[in-house]
């Protein structure tokens, strides 16, 4: 499902080279739920961005869903991303659209038949417990609800792989717990999950394999 081999990512700030990831290698099998744990600046976000080709590695091989990610052409990147759901810390909901419209929007732009959109949107909202908030706008949602709406948007497309980049980063304990439960449910239904967090307690709460990043290096692979 995911395979990284000796991946380096170095950012250039003027003449200065800043390594964000150093010699990262690991594999994630289909159906696994893996937590990526590390402090802020450890390289979690950069690593996830490499997986959905928002960044290119400076060196090394990356394979996701059978694709040689750095070698993909623009059209192939779009095709890869259609199989990946991505959730961010800031939810990235469209402020001018309701929760329903936010979820439906991605289905529409991907050409989902009209008759399938409403059932799929409500199925996704039901799974994250937001059916009653379908007509609410993002500004009317709590942070936890916004994050659940973002998860609904990601799972409505039925992705093979879910990349969650600190989705609980700005949530209190109970809201974070709700999000973790939803992620567990998504994983239980067969989606491979890579969940990035800086909170060691949440990493442990998933009771799954955890990759520990420290200053851009993979220092421990446990579980």
């Amino acid at each position: 499902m995911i395979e990284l081999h000796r991946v380096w990512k170095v950012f250039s700030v003027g003449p200065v080279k800043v390594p964000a990831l150093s010699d990262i290698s690991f594999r994630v099998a289909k159906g696994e739920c893996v937590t990526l744990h590390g402090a802020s600046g450890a390289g979690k976000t950069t690593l996830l961005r490499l997986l959905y080709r928002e960044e290119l590695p400076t060196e090394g091989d990356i394979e996701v869903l059978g694709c040689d990610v750095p070698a993909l052409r623009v059209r192939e990147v779009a095709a890869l991303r259609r199989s990946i759901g991505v959730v961010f810390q800031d939810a990235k909901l469209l402020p001018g659209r309701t929760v329903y419209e936010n979820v439906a929007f991605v289905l529409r732009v991907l050409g989902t038949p009209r008759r399938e959109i409403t059932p799929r949107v409500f199925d996704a909202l039901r799974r994250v417990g937001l059916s009653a908030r379908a007509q609410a706008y993002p500004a009317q949602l709590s942070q936890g609800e916004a994050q659940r709406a973002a998860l609904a948007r990601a799972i409505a497309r039925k992705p093979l792989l879910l990349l969650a980049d600190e989705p609980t980063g700005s949530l209190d304990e109970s809201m974070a717990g709700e999000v973790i439960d939803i992620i567990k449910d998504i994983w239980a239904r067969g989606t491979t999950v890579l969940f990035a967090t800086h909170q060691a307690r949440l990493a442990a709460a998933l009771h799954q394999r955890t990759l520990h990043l420290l200053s851009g290096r993979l220092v421990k692979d446990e579980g």
Partner: protein
Amino acid sequence: MLGFLIGEALRDLHRAGRVAVAAILLTTLSLAALGGFWLVSTNVGQAAEQWRDRVRITVFLKQEPSAAETDELVDRVQAMPGVAAVRYVSKSEALGTLKEVLGKDASVAEQLPTNPLPASLEVMLNEQGATPEGARGLITRLSELPETDEVSGGMDWVDRLARGRRLLDVIGLGIGAVLAVAAILTVTTATTLVLHLRRQELEIMRLVGAPELVVRLPLLLQGMLQGLLGAVMAIWVLIAVYALAGPHLEPLVNQTLGLERLTFLKPHTVVGLMLAGTMLGGFGGWLARGRTAP
């Protein structure tokens, strides 16, 4: 999917607000200017055509031929390329015409000791002869006839009218082109503004792997819609100006150009203006996409 894309384009148009309105108005202005010059040019061209049909070349003869010579001369001229018809005007007929023109002063002509007017041939031109080159060639051939004293008439002033029409076309195209560039830039600005407003949507679209066409098409459609709306408004403006000013201008046009009534643009020209507006707007939308492409 197409319904969704059109819906998105309309939503974008609404979001662009006053900039979109400015783009539509500039498109209206550029196409109204172009259409206005086209309208004037069409009518001037029609006048030139009409006058070209009425052009006569008069061949004044050295001396009045006999009846047999007249028939032979008329047949010879009739056989020349560019000639539609030939009419012989005798000296006495010419004098009669002069008297008609003089009216109550016709007695002046009667006091002349001899008829000073020459016999002549009135040559009507066919399509081939009614061109500047055709008329010049025919005048040369008529001048070379041994019976010819002088040839008058021709296409000079019709030529000038045609040149004036071409000048109008060039001025119209020039002004239209300048305004069209302004309209394209405004449409580009409106679309760029929408791109800025839509940056979050575009980011989501890219992240979920939306096809490039789905990202690009609403912007193109938005530009095309602005252009089309501008073109429709320009045509309304032209119709209104034609309906309001036409009846007041017709007497003047009748006296100066000899046109009985002004004509509006032909349907294919109207369709052409609408297409031009749509393409102009589409180009503006496409330019905006190019400027902000990741």
